[in-house]
């Protein structure tokens, strides 16, 4: 960046230099760990190219939409994990807590209860939030590391889940019979609604970026060159249009000489987008979000600055519970039911999604969008390997390698930032 004293009328002349400096800063940032999305995007491109070459169905609309739906679980669990990772804490129990939340909703809308769907969903999210609060209270009051508290939680909540599912007497699985809960993932918005939804999203995001830039410029503060802003907005718009075209392509199958109609985005997608927007707003625009970063960066500094550390730690645990509850609802909706035998890799994929996306395990560094990117990568590997009929053993190993690479990058970046001081 050039000097902050550049007058506005010089901004235009220097804008080309600024583009270069911007790119240079980005490259230098790679070593410091503020790498942005560059290496991750390269990783995604490589993975997608590999799977597409091996199986041309990979990039078909039908498979991509399926992939996005698979990703929603990982994305939301990753988001749940990020609240605590920011503090340098971790939650190993999010997988079972989220399925427990989903199971509560299934049970309350079905069998003997027949609750209305909104009450059941509200209760499910309250349950998982309360579980988060319990983990937080134990961690804070008894000063037990969150690692241990949530490891105990992982075991305990799996036990509770098995108990309540088996108690329904339906042989260890309960199907979702409530229409709204089932439709959450399994039905699609119409193509028109899909267009409108994404148009509103892009317009809203562009409006926020542009008004922010204008406010900074009119206050005489340094603003990134207009060209860069426009490149960002145009990129966002293009990606979104491609996404909408994928969602709106007819991915129905030919059945008896007649092609069924299956188009539009699954309703799970806007849920993800709302959580992403809400979480990002919370972390970047509110005091509480700022304090989560501060506590993760230097807890003593936060305390001396007058931040009520315990209060915000408890809040982070509750946010983790809340977000995993939402994830659980989508999970049971996608599977069309809940069983007492839950895939134990869920929790590991939650941590993996957050960390692969770029959130630090050491606290203080991370964004909600990291869960989106990381969850997408996990889903790409999961989906692509399934498509290539590769065994589960190879799939686990592949995700392990990606996870290890991501954590190694994180660790090296940390060292890089210490060296530059």
């Amino acid at each position, binding site marked *: *960046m050039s000097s902050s004293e550049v007058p506005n009328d010089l901004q235009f002349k220097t804008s080309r230099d600024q583009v270069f400096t911007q790119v240079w800063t980005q490259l230098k940032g790679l070593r410091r760990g503020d790498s942005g999305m560059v290496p991750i995007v390269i990783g995604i491109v490589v993975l997608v190219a590999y799977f597409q070459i091996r199986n041309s169905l990979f990039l078909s609309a039908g498979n991509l939409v399926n992939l996005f739906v698979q990703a929603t679980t990982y994305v939301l669990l990753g988001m749940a994990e990020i609240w605590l990772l920011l503090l340098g804490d971790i939650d190993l129990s999010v997988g079972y807590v989220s399925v427990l939340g989903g199971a509560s909703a299934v049970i309350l809308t079905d069998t003997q209860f027949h609750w209305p769907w909104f009450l059941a969903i509200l209760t499910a999210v309250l349950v998982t939030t309360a579980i988060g609060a319990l983990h937080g209270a134990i961690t804070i009051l008894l000063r037990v590391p969150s690692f241990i508290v949530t490891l105990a939680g992982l075991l305990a909540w799996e036990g509770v889940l098995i108990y309540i599912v088996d108690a329904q007497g339906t042989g260890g699985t309960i199907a979702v019979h409530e229409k709204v809960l089932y439709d959450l993932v399994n039905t699609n918005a119409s193509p028109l609604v899909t267009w409108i939804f994404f148009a509103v999203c892009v317009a809203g995001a562009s409006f926020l970026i542009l008004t922010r830039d204008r406010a900074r410029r009119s206050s005489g*503060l340094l603003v990134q060159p207009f060209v860069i802003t426009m490149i960002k907005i145009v990129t966002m718009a293009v990606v979104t249009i491609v996404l909408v075209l994928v969602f709106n392509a007819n991915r129905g199958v030919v059945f008896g000489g007649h092609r069924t109609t299956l188009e539009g985005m699954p309703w799970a997608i806007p849920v993800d987008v709302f959580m992403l927007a809400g979480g990002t707003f919370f972390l970047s625009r509110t005091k509480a979000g*700022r304090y989560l970063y501060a506590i993760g960066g230097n807890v003593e500094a936060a305390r001396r600055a007058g931040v009520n550390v315990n209060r915000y730690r408890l809040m982070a645990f509750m946010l983790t519970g809340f977000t995993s509850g939402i994830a659980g609802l989508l999970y049971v909706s996608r599977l069309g039911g809940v069983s007492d035998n839950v895939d134990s890799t869920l929790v590991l994929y939650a941590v993996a999604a957050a960390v692969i996306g770029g959130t630090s395990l050491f606290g203080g560094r991370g964004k909600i969008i990291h869960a989106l990117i990381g969850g997408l990568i996990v889903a790409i590997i999961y989906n692509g390997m399934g498509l290539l009929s590769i065994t589960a053993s190879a799939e686990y190993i592949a995700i392990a390698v990606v996870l290890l690479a991501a954590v190694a990058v994180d660790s090296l970046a940390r060292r890089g930032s210490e060296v530059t001081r």
Partner: protein
Amino acid sequence: MTNTPESPSSLTPSNGSTEHGVSGVSPSSAPLLQLRAITKSFGAVQALKHVDLEVPAGKVTALIGDNGAGKSTLIKAIAGIYTPTSGEILWNGNVVHIHSPHDAEQLGIATVYQDLALCDNLDVVENMFLGHEDMRHRTLDEIKMELAAKQVLADLSVTTVKSVRQKVASLSGGQRQSVAVAKAVMRESKLVVLDEPTAALGVSQTAQVLELIHTLAGRGIAVLLISHNLNDVFAVADRIAVMHLGTLVSSGPVSDYDASSAVDLITTGESARSVSTMAPSS
């Protein structure tokens, strides 16, 4: 060595403002901060023994002493982290009770600790406003905060920090210290306590920080500087106070001391070379 010669005089509740003629401050106005017979015990251990100290506004008061002399305990008592076992603290001549860091902050006491209470992962503006963010429509008012941060840094002539939006992790030691001091000052502080601000800094960065300390005093802020480095102390201090084994053994204008008498006082608690300063308020 439990009974140093001057402790009897500390015990008498004499008004401290007469000792040493109080350089520069008119005798009528009370010093900004005045400690009277402050004692702090941890069980059987007396960390502070009847400490009397004055910190006038617009002056740099250097608090020197060896490790374990009680400097840190004393500033923690001022910052509200420890409550003194006995004695009183006067602020502008009025007795005050500082029971928490919050109380100290309310009075206008800001403490910059040795281990730099900054968050590496936040930028300069975010650090300077941590815990006191400006809000607009219930969200962070980044523009207002950034403008204010730039203003404060400019007022303090801190020119080395190029962008206030860079992460503190990327700053040099001197720049970090400057940000920590600026953070302390921007809350309208009247007294800034600096704990070893030049420890671990290079020559030019030390000069930067000393310059900043000078600027603070020039703006009428009382500075209490804790330092091991006598060069720094003699370069910037207006007054010196020496602690030895929990007792304030000597204090006065910097002109009453030289390097050798200061070293004697730090190491032994007394100095043959500066007898006049050894018996205050006699």
